C-alpha cells in the first residue's frame, strides 16, 4: 500500500474527496454571500438562518404536503427566496445608505429571531429527512465507499455555482447588475429599475442558501442550529476568497473543504480552527483576499 506522510494512500484520497463534498456546501453558501455583498454591500449574517429555512422548507413540504425531494429542490428556494425578497423590501432596503456594520447587526438580529422561532416551534434535536430512494446506496470506489447522494451534492453544487457565475459575468443581465452596483443613478437613467434589480439579487442570493439547505437536509439533521454551525466558516471563506468575488468564493469554498478534510486525518482536534488559521495568514499577506480586487 502507498503511504503518504504515514497515512495510507487510499485513506488520503478518500479524505480529499470528502473535503470536496464539504467544500461544495461552503462554495454554495459563500457564493450567495458574495453575490449579496458584491451587489448590495450588505454583509448578510442571516445567511445561515436562511440556509436552515431551506432545509426546513423541504421537510415541511414533505411532512405537510407530501411533496418529495426533487420538487422541493425547486420549490424550497422559491419559497425562501420570496421570504428574502419580503425581508429586503420591508427591512433591509432601509439600510443601504448606512455603514456596513448596520446591515450586519440587522441581519445578525434577524438570524437570531428566525432561529429562535424555529427552535420554539420544532425544538433543537432536529427532524428526520430521508435521502430520496433513487439516490440511496453507494459506489465502491476501491479506496472508499462513496454514497451516491454525496456525489450528487458535488455535481448539483458545481452546476449551480458555475451557472450563477456565468449569469453574473457573461450575460447582459449580469452586466446591468454589475453596472448598477458601480453607478446606480446612471443605470437608472438608462431606464433600468435598479431597486427591483437589487431586490431580486437579494432574493437570488437567499435562494442559493435555501438550495444548499435542501441539499443538506438528508445529510445533517434538520435543526434550527444547522446554519450557525456553517456560517462562521463560510464567512471565513468569503474573506479568504475576497469579499464580493464570485469565482473567488467558489474556488476558496472547494479549496478550504479540502484543507479541512486533510486536517481531519492529521490532527482532527484542529479541524474546526484550520480555516481561521488560513484566514489570518491570507489577511496578513493579501488583505483584500486571494481573489479580491485592489481598491
Amino acid at each position: 500500500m502507498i503511504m503518504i506522510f504515514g497515512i495510507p494512500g487510499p485513506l488520503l484520497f478518500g479524505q480529499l474527496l470528502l473535503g470536496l463534498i464539504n467544500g461544495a456546501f461552503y462554495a454554495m453558501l459563500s457564493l450567495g454571500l458574495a453575490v449579496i455583498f458584491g451587489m448590495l454591500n450588505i454583509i448578510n449574517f442571516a445567511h445561515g438562518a436562511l440556509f436552515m429555512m431551506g432545509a426546513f422548507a423541504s421537510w415541511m413540504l414533505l411532512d405537510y404536503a407530501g411533496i418529495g425531494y426533487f420538487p422541493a429542490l425547486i420549490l424550497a428556494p422559491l419559497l425562501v427566496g420570496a421570504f428574502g425578497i419580503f425581508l429586503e423590501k420591508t427591512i433591509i432596503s432601509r439600510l443601504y445608505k448606512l455603514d456596513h456594520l448596520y446591515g450586519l447587526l440587522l441581519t445578525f438580529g434577524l438570524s437570531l429571531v428566525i432561529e429562535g422561532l424555529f427552535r420554539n416551534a420544532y425544538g433543537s434535536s432536529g427532524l428526520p429527512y430521508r435521502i430520496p430512494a433513487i439516490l440511496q446506496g453507494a459506489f465502491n470506489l476501491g479506496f472508499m465507499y462513496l454514497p451516491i447522494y454525496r456525489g450528487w451534492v458535488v455535481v448539483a453544487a458545481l452546476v449551480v455555482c458555475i451557472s450563477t457565475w456565468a449569469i453574473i459575468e457573461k450575460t447582459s443581465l449580469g452586466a446591468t447588475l454589475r453596472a448598477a452596483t458601480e453607478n446606480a443613478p446612471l443605470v437608472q437613467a438608462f431606464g433600468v429599475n435598479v431597486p427591483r434589480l437589487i431586490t431580486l439579487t437579494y432574493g437570488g442570493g437567499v435562494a442559493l442558501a435555501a438550495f444548499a439547505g435542501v441539499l443538506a437536509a438528508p445529510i445533517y439533521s434538520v435543526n434550527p442550529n444547522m446554519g450557525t454551525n456553517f456560517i462562521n466558516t463560510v464567512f471565513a471563506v468569503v474573506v479568504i476568497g475576497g469579499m464580493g468575488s464570485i469565482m473567488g468564493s467558489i474556488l476558496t469554498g472547494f479549496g478550504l473543504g479540502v484543507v479541512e478534510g486533510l486536517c481531519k486525518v492529521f490532527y482532527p482536534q484542529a479541524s474546526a480552527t484550520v480555516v481561521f488559521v488560513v484566514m489570518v495568514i491570507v489577511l496578513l499577506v493579501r488583505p483584500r483576499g486571494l481573489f479580491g480586487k485592489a481598491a
Partner: protein
Amino acid sequence: MILTRRSALTTVAAASALPLIRPAVIPSARAQTPTIKIGVLNDQSGPYTNTGGATSVVCVKQALEDFGVSTKGMNVEVIAADHQNKPDLAVSIARQWFDRDGVDMLIDVPTSSVALALQSVVREKNKVYLNSGAASSALTGAQCSPNFIHWTYDTYMLAKSTGGAMVKAGGDSWYFLTADYAFGKQLQADTSAFVTASGGKVLGAAQYPFPGTTDFSSFLVQAQSSGAKVLGLANAGGDTVNSIKQAAEFGLNNSMKIAALLMFITDVHALGLDVAAGLNLTESFYWDLNERTRAFTKRVLPKTPNNYPNMDHAGCYSATLHYLKTVADMGAAEAKKDGVATVNRMKAMPVEDDCFGSSKIREDGRNMVTSYLFQVKKPSESKGPWDYYNLVATTPGDEAYRPLADGHCPIVKA
C-alpha cells in the same frame, strides 16, 4: 473592509455572551417562612435544548406541585437560565444567583465541562448542587464535593451497560468517535477500560472539535478503514444523531456495530426509527417502563407536549422532590444555612419517587438508580407516539456504578 469585519466579530462575540436569564417565579404562599430558591441552569438554545431545556424546568415545577409546597406552608421559587454550554458563563450566572438572588439549590446542569466548573463555586458558597444532566464520572470521583449529588447516570454506568453488552455480543475491537471535551474523553476512557478488561482492543479514536462539527464523514471513513468491529460514539445530542445518520449513509452499519454510548429518547425521536432501529442504548428512565413512570409522564406531558421526558428530565423531578422532602424535614431556615448539612441529610434519607422507584445516595454523592439497557424498536413494532424502546437488561443500582474505592473521591474516608 478588514476593520468592518473585525468590529463585526467583536459585536457578535459580545451579543452571544449576553446571559439570557429568564426568571420564572412561582408565587409564594406565605411570607413569614424563608423562601427556598431553586435555580435550573441548562442549555436552552443549543444542541442540548431538548435533552434538558424547558422540559427540565417543567419537571422541577412538577415536583413542587406533587410535593404540595403550598399546602405544606413552604415558599419555593424556581428560576431558570441558559448556560449556552459555556463554563465561564455558567460560573458567573451561578455566582450572581448565590450572591444577589439568594438561590439555595442548583439543578440539572448538563455539559460536563460546565458541571465540573461549578463544583468549586457551589462548595465555596456552601449551597446544594444536584446534577442530573451531565455525564462525567469525575463528578463523583476526583472532582467530588460534599455539596454535590449526581442523580441520574454517569459515563461509567453507560460504559458498563452499553459497552459491556456490545463486548458480550462479540464486539471485541473498538474505534471511538469522541467529542473533544471533558465528557467525551471521560466516556471514551471509561468504555476503553471495560473493553480492555474483557480482553478486547481499542484500535483508534478520532477526537473532533466540540461544538461546531457537523460533518463526521472523514472520521467515519477512518473508522471503517481501521477494521474495528464496533464504532463507539462518545458524544451526545445532535452530534450523536448526525454521526448515526452519516454512518448509515456510508454503509458503516453493514461492516461495524454502532454503540451509541449516550443517547436519550429525544435523540431517537430526531433520528426516526428506520435509522435508529436495533441500536442499543442505556437510560435510567423510560416513560413507558411501568405504571408509575406512565403516571408521571401523564402529569408532565400537557406542559411539554412535543418533548417526552427522558432520564435527565426525570432526574430533575426526582432530585427536586427529594430535596423538598429533606428541606421539610430539617426546616427551611436550617436548609438555607448549610448546603453540606442539607446534602448529608439527603444522603441519609432513602430516595423514593415515581420515576426511579427507590434508591439510595452513596457518600461520594452518587445516587444509585437502576440502569436499563434498551434496544430501539423497528418501525413495525412501534405502536404509538414515542413507543421506541424494548427493555433488554436491567442492572440494579448497587452494580451499575463504579465501586466507591475506585473513584478516589477525596471526601470519602478510607
